[in-house]
């Protein structure tokens, strides 16, 4: 049993590796293969459309409740995402099996894009547009499952005010806060608004110092 499993895992390593010429090995980040394997073997999956439609109905309800005050809807989505992020990080740590801290923010970005998004949404946004101080980057979403089946209301406002996938910003903020990073995230373009790309800007505000637990006595 164990042997057959090992050989199966071995195969998955072999097949993709045989084709391309030896890629430059990244010294520290060896996650390129496991992340696909994690998705294939360790993640309980459901039909994507169930998730997508559920998200759609959440946003639609918010628009209704706040009378199409899209600025407020963005805020609410961000808040929901934040709540999710606080809990999601544990799930992430358990599933990604990365037992160590990221040594810098660039590495964090890699993990967010290549492991985090992969585990939960099966996508890998591209990391780009770093600022020279390595504190700000963009995630460009080639694909955004949440945006499937979606068209924003044609009311001359939604396309200027609503960030449909804003929940993702909150998730990032909440999850990173739990690992001592205070970040700020917001979308700067969205295909749903008529832009050519969907892009989120993420900035590191500060590392949160470990606080000593209150003394017992």
């Amino acid at each position: 049993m164990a042997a057959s499993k090992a050989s199966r895992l071995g195969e998955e390593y072999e097949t993709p590796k045989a084709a391309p010429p030896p890629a430059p090995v990244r010294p520290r980040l060896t996650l390129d293969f496991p992340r696909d394997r994690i998705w294939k073997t360790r993640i309980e999956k459901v039909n994507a459309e169930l998730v997508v439609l559920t998200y759609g109905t959440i946003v639609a309800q918010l628009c209704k409740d706040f009378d199409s005050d899209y600025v407020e809807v963005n805020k609410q989505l961000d808040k929901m995402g934040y709540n999710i992020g606080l809990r999601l990080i544990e799930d992430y740590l358990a599933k990604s099996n990365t037992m160590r801290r990221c040594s810098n923010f660039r590495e964090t970005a890699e993990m967010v894009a290549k492991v985090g998004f992969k585990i939960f949404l099966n996508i890998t946004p591209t990391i780009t547009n770093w600022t020279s101080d390595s504190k700000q980057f963009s995630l460009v979403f080639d694909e955004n499952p949440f945006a499937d089946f979606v068209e924003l209301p044609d009311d001359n406002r939604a396309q200027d005010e609503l960030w449909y996938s804003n929940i993702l910003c909150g998730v990032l903020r909440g999850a990173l806060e739990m690992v001592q990073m205070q970040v700020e995230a917001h979308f700067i373009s969205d295909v749903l608004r008529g832009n050519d790309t969907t892009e989120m800007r993420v900035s590191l505000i500060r590392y949160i110092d470990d606080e000593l637990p209150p003394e017992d006595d």
Partner: protein
Amino acid sequence: MSHLAAGKTAGAKEAAGLRYPSNGKTIYHRPLNRTKTAELSQSSFAYLFSEMVTYAQRRVTGIQELEKRLNLQGHPIGLKLLDLLLIREPARSQTRPLNIISLLHFIKINIWQHLFGRQADRLEKSSNPDTPDEYMIVDNEPLVNAYVSVPREMSQLNCAAFVAGIIEGVCDGAAFPARVTAHSVGGKEEGEMWPGKTVFLVKFQPEVLEREALIGRA
């Protein structure tokens, strides 16, 4: 005069309409079946669903109202799924369900299979002669409740009301107006096989049964 001017600007604005990306990434260019078999992680669903319930809970005063709200959020999904799943059927079975039984089968098989990856467990007609308009769809273990634990003081609550809303949407969309509610019927004792067992009670409007009877006679 001012009236005319106002009309004109409104017209111009309308003409502007929605903006679309120049690379053609719009819902009109996207193949309808692209995500037919796509998968996402179940945790993503669980997180979203729990936020949805928490949010709904803040805006209601009672359990019934909460279930009503979840039901309302499922309704539009059902309406759309009916068309989406029918259009994906092979041409010969692409017709809308025309009687109660085929509608319920469509829900039990197609809708369930699509959303939850398996069929619903059972389909029953009410055995009570007073309520011939009631049908039951039984799910032993609703996927949406997988990570939901209901506090004791709210034991009446079944978050699958969301799924009930989806079913109601399908029924309404197929012109079989109905009320659908979710009820927990799993035993609470230790060792119970299906503690989360849920019955979706489908109660059709009188006109549906009337029509059904007419068709039956013809």
